[in-house]
Each structure stands twice: as structure tokens, then as C-alpha cells.
């Protein structure tokens, strides 16, 4: 059962899937993400069911500013692109490029997070607290949960960057980087849905 990977010609072209352990991690993580998708779907469902329930408090039309959210979206989309470039570098066994692209991803993620915190503070100033209305609760819960995922993703990637700062690409850490970048894409896709369902539909009144 144990895979013996032929390393005589250097790292294989798909180092993340070369070992059984790597393949297990890969499949397991996809299943985990499908579960996460269902969980987010539930929060989306709750938000869609409750977004009219403003109970006299501020509504989506009154609060949301498209330019800000647009910048946040762009930041996150770009960070996803840089993580793709990092994986591309990994497959060419270019460790330095991978580290640079991954670090860029982290920086872009941090910028996104900063704007999100600014956004929440603004909304609270405009009278939408967490307990103001069902709309407020479900908005902060959905978007906040996404934010928590961003935090976790940043912590995860940063840990990998520090832990493997000097190790080069190996059969052990390749699946770890790969899975982390997969997670980052997932966060990005969820944000695209949040952007559409929460912000565009909120402003457009659809």
C-alpha cells in the first residue's frame, strides 16, 4: 500500500498527489469543502428568509455602498489569482516564486479583512447593530462567518509560510500548500455569492 515515489528524477510533476497520503488529503479536503458549502448554503438560506425583517431598523438599500464592496471583491479575486500562480510555481518546482506569490495572497487577504472591519464599523455607526433586527443578525452572521474563514485561512497560510520558509518543496509540504490554496479559492467563491446575493440584490432590491 505504501507508495514509493521515484525521486531519482527530482520532484514529480504533481507533488501534491504523488503519495497516497497526499491523495487522501486531497479527497478529504474536497469532501470537507462540500460540507462547508452546505453550511454556507444554510446561512444564505437564513439570510434570504430574513433580509426583509428589518423591524424598522436600517435596510440594505440605505446602508450598502457599492464602491467599497467592489474594491473588496477585487482584492479577494486578485488574491485567488496569486494563489493560483503560487501553485503553478510549485508544479515547476520554483520554491521562491511560490513563497512570493503565497505571501502576496496573504497581504491581499489582510487588506480585504481591514476593509471588512471598516465596513462593519460604519454600519454600526449607521444604526445596524447585531441585535437590531433579524436582517442585521443574519447579515453579520453570514458575512462575519466568511470573515472568520478569511482569518483562519490567513493564519493557516502564514503558519505554512513560516514553518517551511527554508525547506523547499517536498512531498510532505506540497499537499499542505495545495490544500491551503484550495481553501483560499473556496473563500473566494463564497465571497462572489455574498457579493451577488447580499450586496447586489440588497442594493438592487431584487
Amino acid at each position: 500500500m505504501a507508495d514509493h515515489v521515484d525521486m531519482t528524477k527530482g520532484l514529480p510533476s504533481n507533488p501534491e498527489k504523488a503519495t497516497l497520503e497526499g491523495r487522501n488529503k486531497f479527497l478529504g479536503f474536497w469532501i470537507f469543502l462540500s460540507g462547508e458549502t452546505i453550511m454556507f448554503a444554510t446561512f444564505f438560506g437564513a439570510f434570504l428568509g430574513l433580509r426583509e425583517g428589518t423591524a424598522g431598523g436600517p435596510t440594505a438599500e440605505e446602508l450598502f455602498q457599492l464602491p467599497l464592496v467592489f474594491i473588496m471583491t477585487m482584492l479577494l479575486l486578485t488574491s485567488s489569482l496569486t494563489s493560483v500562480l503560487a501553485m503553478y510555481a510549485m508544479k515547476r518546482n520554483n520554491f521562491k516564486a511560490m513563497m512570493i506569490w503565497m505571501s502576496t495572497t496573504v497581504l491581499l487577504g489582510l487588506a480585504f479583512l481591514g476593509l471588512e472591519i471598516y465596513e462593519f464599523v460604519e454600519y454600526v455607526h449607521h444604526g445596524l447593530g447585531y441585535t437590531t433586527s433579524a436582517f442585521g443578525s443574519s447579515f453579520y452572521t453570514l458575512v462575519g462567518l466568511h470573515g472568520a474563514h478569511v482569518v483562519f485561512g490567513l493564519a493557516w497560510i502564514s503558519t505554512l509560510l513560516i514553518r517551511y520558509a527554508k525547506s523547499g518543496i517536498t512531498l510532505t509540504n506540497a499537499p499542505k500548500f495545495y490544500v491551503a490554496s484550495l481553501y483560499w479559492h473556496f473563500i473566494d467563491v463564497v465571497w462572489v455569492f455574498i457579493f451577488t446575493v447580499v450586496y447586489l440584490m440588497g442594493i438592487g432590491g431584487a
Partner: protein
Amino acid sequence: MADYSAIIKEKKDKSVLMDWLTTVDHKKLGVMYLIAGTLFFLKAGLMAVFMRIQLMFPESNFLDGQTYNEFITMHGTIMLFLAATPLLFAFMNYIIPLQIGARDVAFPFVNALGFWIFFFGGLLLSVSWFFGGAPDAGWTAYVPLSAGDYGHLGMDFYVIGLQISGIGTLISAINFIVTIVNMRAPGMTMMRMPLFCWTSLVTSLLIVFAFTPLAAGLALLMLDRLFGAQFFSPDSGGNAVLWQHIFWIFGHPEVYILVLPAFGIISEVIPAFSRKRLFGYTAMVFATLIIAFLGFMVWVHHMFTVGIGPVTNSVFAIATMAIGIPTGIKIFNWLFTMWGGKLTFNTAMLCASSFVPTFVLGGVTGVMLSMVPVDYLYHDTYFVVAHFHYIIVGGIVLGLLAGLYYWYPKMFGHHLNEKLGMLMFWMFYIGFHMTFFVQHILGLIGMPRRVYTYLEGQGMDTMNLISSIGAFLMSAGIIVLVINIVYSALKSERVVVSDPWDARTLEWSTPTPIPEYNFAQVPQVRSLDPLFYEKIHGDGKMKPAEPLSDIHMPNGSILPFIIGIGMFVWGFGMIMLNMENAIITPYAVIIPGFLLTFGSMLVRSIKEDHGYHITVEELKKLEKEVS
């Protein structure tokens, strides 16, 4: 000299404890699930006995309404989440790798982690008794009764305990899926897998898709209770029915999560003791998949009386009826497996075969319940209580008992006593029908469920008495089982052969007791029922698929246990946010728990653990000992 041996003994004792706390071996974890599940089962069963004592006579004062509500809630919650699930996980953990010819599960560390998180989550739920009372809003925890304004502190234990134990269940399920998909022995194609592996795979998928909505729902309820969110308060734009949708999107698949592995066990035991292959294997696999798929399309049938409207109700009624078809396919395939076989009726087979007609009785009431207008009568009455106990006790518990008697010799190296087994079966089976059959009628004559008492003169007295006596008989049956376990451990003859039942699947090709690495050489699978195939077409032994070589084994780790404790502490701290006069500030508990949990994860992530190897020489020595 004496001192010296005492020291050795002490050291050895300690290492045994540490061995079990740090193990990542799927077989040991299976046994741990079995023990934990049994303890929770006995606890929740005892609560049921107390409830039946209260309902034995009208207007009884044995329990008051509040205590009774705490008992129904804990009985349901424990039985489903902390008894049935781990008991099934026990067999899944122990048997799946053996049946597919693997040395362990895909992620041994995650397997241990799943167990400890589940265990400490369950423990957190259980300590609620010492902090002002257990949860009391029913296992379904409908809002607003369970929400901030009306629910007691017990509900916080429910919300957080279940969230924690749910994480454990979820990661274990992911582990099973990856194991079954990636770790099968050469030649073990999907359509050669034993049905128990199939149903376990489907159950694990259901867990991934059903426990996540539950996690979301519990999170909403937690935010409502601890942080004043307004999801369920109509005055602030919330909606009380939202919880019911989320809960039942989880709750209905949960029934199949539990019953499918039981179907799997039955599909192993009946062929083994009919000496005949499973009739219609392909149909059985597809029926399982269809049941799982439809299981997600029917949740509204728990909510017919919520007032969703005739269109929705009709659609969900038809979808519900449709589940009857694949279930029927399974029933008839089991019957035709027995038909033309050579049946041996030991305890395992008695439990497995009597499952078939019993489950049909639960199934037909299920179809009756799907008739929307008639459900307006059945809904939330004892008719429903009778229905789902026929499914859960008549289905899942009989399946578990069959599995226990069947796999016991492989797991523990000796048989359970057959005479005591028969006694247990008949007491349990007769008691079961006495308890639950009359409850159908009680529901129709006007007894709602979850009532702590009923008034005299409504025609309910006799049937409640019968039901209670039946419950005592059932409990006596379970006591006989416990006696049997102890008696057999002491007196029963050791099993030394690998295949005591003349069975058909791969787990019976391993030596008893099973070495840590399961298979010295991974077997080559040539057919469905591979061992049986080799008995007919070969020499009765599995052919190896690889030369004898070093075996890579994972190291044990204490981290799963510590993460479990961390989550317990963290969760308890969260509950303290709602306690009125906590001794210390909740954050003094939350933060250490949080740090313990994530710190351990960080350690695991940073410290690379490559495991160890059993060399060929050691392997040869070990194999000689075994044979």
C-alpha cells in the same frame, strides 16, 4: 524483588491507560466507540424507564412536568447523537478497513480526534444535570421554546454540546469516505464491496451534507441565546419556522444516517447465516443510493401542520411515499436471500432476520404518516412515537444487536453466550412490541406526545400500563445482555480460528486476535464475498497482492485527547456566558480552552510525524506467533 515487580506492574498499568488515550488504531477506537456508546445507551435507556414509570398510571406524581421534559429531551438527544451514532461508528471503525482489505483508515489521527471530540461533546451535554437542569425543549428544540426568551440554561448545553460532538461525527465521516474511496485492496472494486461498506459510505456522505446544516442551525440558536441575535423573534423580523426547516433538513437524513448502516449489518449477517450470497446485490446498492437521495427531499413531512400550504404539502407527501419503493426493494431482497438458503438461527441471525418483518411494521406506518390530511391526526401524537420507535428500536437496535453478536468473536476473541443471547432476544423482542404497539392506538384516541401525564377516564390507562410493563421487559433484556458480556468475558471459550461462522467477507480472513497492521500482506480480491470465493475456487485463504515488505504505521498521539478537553473547556466557557452567577468570568475559561484547542492543532501542524515501520523480520516473527 517484590518492589521491583510492583514497579513493573505500575509502569505497565500506566502504559495501558496511555496506550488507549493515545491510540490511533481503528480497532481500538472501534472498541472505545462501542464502550462510550453503550454507556450513553444505558443512561438514556434508564431515562426511558423513568418516563414509563411516570406514565404507568394516570395523574402520577413520580416526575414533574419540568423533569419529564428534561428526560424526553435527553433521552432523544442521547439516543440519536451519543448512543446510536457511536455504536454504528464502532462497527464502521472496526470493520470497514478489514472488509476492504486496508491496514487502517485514511487519517488515523483524525479518527482518534473524531472520537475524543464526540466524547467530550457528549460529556458536556451530560454535565448539564449539575448546572440547573438538562435541556428541556425536546430533541428537536423548537424555537421559541428553546430560544433566549423561554429556554433554560440547559439549552445552552444542548446547543454547544451537540455542536462539539457534531464536529467529531463530521470529521469521522469524512475519514470513512476517503478510506472507502482510496484505500481498497487491489481487486476490491466498488461493486465488490460488502454492502456494509456501501451503506457506511452513503451514511458518511449523508453526515457531510446533513450535519453541516445542523451545525449552522445550532450556530444560529447559539447566537440567539448567547449574543441576542434576532433570527427567531417575530417582533424583530425573525421567523420561528426557520429553525424547523433547518432542523429537519438535517433531521430527516439523520434517520437514514442511522438506519443505513443497520441495513448494512443486516445485509452481512443474513447472507452469512443463510450460507447464500446477498440476493440482488446491485439492486441493494442502488436502493441505498436512492434512499439517501430522497432522504433530502422529504423534510417537510415533519412539518405538515406548520401551515406551509397544500402545494408544498402534496409535493412532499408524494416524495415521502416514493421512499417506500427502494425500502421495499431491500426488504424483499433480504427475504429472498433467506429463501432457498440454509438458515442457522443463533442470536445474531434471530436479531437480523426478525429485523425484516419488524421494520416493515415501522415502514408501513411511515407511509401512512405521509398522507397529509391523516397526518393532521397522527402528527405529534403517540402514533408518531410508536412509528419511529419501530424504525429505531425495531430497525437500528436490532441491527446493532445482530452486529454485536456477529462480530463479537472477531473483536474480542470469544463468543457471547448463546443461551443468554436467546433469552435476551425474546425478552427484548416481546417487550418491544408490548411497549410500542399499543402506542399507535394511544395516539389515535387522543394522547399527544411529550405529555408528562394524562387524565383518568380517557381510555388510556390500560394501554399505558401495558406499554410500561413492556418497557420493563425490554430493559430486563438489556440487563441480560450486560450480564452476558461479563459472563462470556470470564467463561466463554477463546476463539482461535480466523473464521468461526464460516462467513464470506474479508474481515474473517484475518487471524484472531487481529494484529495491529490487520493484513501482513494486502489480499488480492477476486470477487464479491472474496473469502467465500476462495473457499470455493481456491484453498480457502486469501492470496496476497504484494510481497512481504516493511509496513508503515502511524504513531500514537495524545493530541486528540487534549483537543477534546480543549473544546470541552472552551464550550463550557461559552455556556458560562449565560450563567447568572458564575464563580469566575467566562473569558477565564473560554480563552484557555480556545488556546488549548488551537495550540494543539498548531503543534500537530508544525511537528511532522512520519510514523514508524514494522520491518519484514519483525513481521515474520509476529506472523509466526499468530499462526
